[in-house]
C-alpha cells in the first residue's frame, strides 16, 4: 500500500471529526432532554404550589380546609422514620458488607448470599410492606408505628448499603491490606484502622442515596398502615403530662411526606392540589439536599485519601 498523501490524511481526519461532532450533538441532546424533564417537574410544582410556601404550611397540621392544612406531622414523621431507618440499616449493612468482603470464605454459600443480596435490591417495595405488616406490625406487635415504618424502610435499603460498602472496600488496593497484615495486624485491626476509614466516603454515599430512596417510598408505608390524617406530633422525650420516656416516640402513629401528598391529590377539592404541589416540592428539596450532602462528603473525604 502506498503511503497516504497529506490531502488524504486530512480527509481521514475530517471524516473522523465529523463523527465526533455527530456523537457530541446527540449526547448533548439526550442530556438536555433529561435535564428538561426534571426542571419542568420542579418548575411545575413551584408554580402550582407558590401560594403555600409560608411558615404556616410547615407548622400546621392537616386540616379539612386546604388553606389551613400544613405538613408539620408529615415532615416530622419523615425525619423520625429516616432516623430509625438509618440507625437500623447502617450498622447492619456496613457489617454485612465488611464481613462478605474481608472475612467470608469464597465458596458456594457466599455466592448464593451475594446473588440474593442483588436480588433483594430488585424486590418491589410493596413486597417489603407485606413482609413488614406480617412480621413487625403483627408478629412483633410493634403496631402501626414509626418503629415499624423505620425498620421496613431499613430492610428496603439494606441491599443498597451492603452493595455500596462492598464496592468501596473493593476499591482499596490489596497492597494496603498486605501492608497492614505484614506488621502483624489481625483482620479486625486491619478493618478498624484501614478498611472502614478508607471505605467511609463510599459507604456514606451509599447510605445517603439509600435514605434518599427511602424518604420517597409510599407503598410499604401504606401497607403497614400509616395514618393519612393526623393532628398531633409523636411525644418528645421527657415532655408532656405524664412525661414521655426517651423512646416513646418510636411507638407513636405517624404520617410521612409521600402519604400526605398522595392523600391531598386524591381529594375532590382542587385547592388541595396546590398543597400537594407545594409538599411535593418540599420532598424533592429534601431528597436533592441529601444527595448534595452525599456528594460534598465524598469529595471532602476522598481528598484526604490517596494511594
Amino acid at each position, binding site marked *: 500500500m502506498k503511503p497516504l498523501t497529506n490531502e488524504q490524511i486530512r480527509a481521514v481526519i475530517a471524516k473522523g471529526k465529523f463523527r465526533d461532532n455527530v456523537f457530541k450533538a446527540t449526547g448533548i441532546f439526550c442530556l438536555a432532554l433529561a435535564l428538561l424533564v426534571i426542571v419542568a417537574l420542579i418548575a411545575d410544582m413551584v408554580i402550582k404550589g407558590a401560594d403555600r410556601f409560608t411558615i404556616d404550611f410547615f407548622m400546621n397540621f392537616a386540616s379539612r380546609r386546604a388553606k389551613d392544612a400544613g405538613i408539620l406531622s408529615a415532615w416530622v414523621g419523615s425525619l423520625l422514620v429516616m432516623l430509625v431507618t438509618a440507625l437500623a440499616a447502617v450498622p447492619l449493612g456496613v457489617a454485612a458488607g465488611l464481613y462478605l468482603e474481608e472475612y467470608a470464605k469464597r465458596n458456594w454459600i457466599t455466592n448464593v448470599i451475594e446473588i440474593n443480596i442483588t436480588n433483594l435490591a430488585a424486590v418491589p417495595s410493596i413486597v417489603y410492606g407485606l413482609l413488614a405488616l406480617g412480621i413487625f406490625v403483627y408478629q412483633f406487635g410493634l403496631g402501626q408505628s414509626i418503629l415499624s415504618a423505620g425498620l421496613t424502610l431499613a430492610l428496603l435499603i439494606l441491599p443498597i448499603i451492603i452493595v455500596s460498602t462492598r464496592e468501596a472496600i473493593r476499591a482499596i488496593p490489596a497492597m*494496603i*491490606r498486605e*501492608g497492614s497484615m505484614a*506488621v*502483624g495486624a489481625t483482620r479486625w485491626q486491619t478493618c478498624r484502622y484501614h478498611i472502614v476509614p478508607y471505605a467511609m466516603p463510599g459507604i456514606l454515599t451509599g447510605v445517603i442515596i439509600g435514605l434518599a430512596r427511602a424518604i420517597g417510598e409510599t407503598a410499604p408505608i401504606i401497607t403497614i398502615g400509616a395514618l393519612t390524617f393526623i393532628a398531633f406530633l409523636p411525644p418528645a422525650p421527657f415532655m408532656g403530662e405524664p412525661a414521655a420516656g426517651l423512646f416513646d416516640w418510636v411507638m407513636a402513629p405517624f404520617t410521612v411526606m409521600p402519604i400526605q401528598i398522595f392523600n391531598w391529590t386524591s381529594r375532590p377539592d382542587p385547592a388541595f392540589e396546590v398543597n400537594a404541589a407545594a409538599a411535593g416540592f418540599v420532598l424533592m428539596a429534601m431528597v436533592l439536599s441529601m444527595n448534595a450532602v452525599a456528594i460534598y462528603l465524598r469529595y471532602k473525604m476522598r481528598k484526604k485519601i490517596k494511594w
Partner: protein
Amino acid sequence: MQIHDTPALKAEARNLNFYYGEAQALKNINMPIYDKKVTALIGPSGCGKSTYLRSFNRMHDLYPGNRYEGEIRFFPDNTNLLAADVDPIEVRMRIGMVFQKPNPFPKSIFENVAYGLRVRGENNKRVLDDKVEHALKGAAIWEEVKDRLPEQAPNLSGGQQQRLCIARALATDPELLLFDEPTSALDPIATGAIEELIHELKKRVTILIVTHNMQQAARVSDYTAYMYLGEMLEFGKTDEIFIKPQDKRTEDYITGRMG
C-alpha cells in the same frame, strides 16, 4: 566453605514446596539464612523468588487455595514458621516486610510508623514518640520528616515513601526483614539511598532481599541464591557466585545471556 567463618543460622528452609492451588511454584527448596547477613534472591521473572520470600511471613495465608509443604525453621527457638499450629500473625510480628511498590497508609507519617506498635497494644504517647523517632532514624529519613510528622505520608516522594515503609517495619524490632524488590519503583538516587540503608541495617537485623538487579545483589548481599523455575539452583557467598558460578544456568543469567 570453612566451618569457622560460617555465621549462626537465623532461618533455614527444609524441603520447602509451595502450591498455588494445583500449580507448584516452589520445588524442594533447602537453604540457610544466616544471622545478621544480607541474603539476595535472584533469578528470572516467574522463578518463584517472591513466592519464596512471602512464605517467610505467611503472606500466602491471606489468600485461599495456597498450600505449603516442608518447613522453614526459625532460630534461635527452632520454630517451624509453616506449622499449622503456628499463628501467621505471630510470625508476622517477628518478621517485617517491605514491598515492591511503596505502600504507605493514607495516614500521617507518624501514624504510619506507629501502626505496628499500636497493633501490639502500645498507646503511651511518650513510648510511641520515642520508638517512631528511633525507627525513622534507623531508616535514614528522620532528618527529612522530623518537622512534618503530622503530614499525610502519600505526599512524600517515592524514595521517601519506601524508607518510611522500612521505618514502619523497623519500629517493631523484627528479627528478619524481607525486601521484595524494594527499589524497582525508584530512581537511581533513591535506590542508592535504600542500598546504603540495607548495609547499615544488617548490623541489627537479618535481611532477605529479592532483586531483579544483578549489580544490586552484588553490592548489598553477603549470600546469594539463584532460583529458576521454582527451584534453587545455587546458593553461596555472593563473591563466589558472581565470580565463579557452579551452574551453567546461573552463569548465563548473571552474565546477561538469559533472563
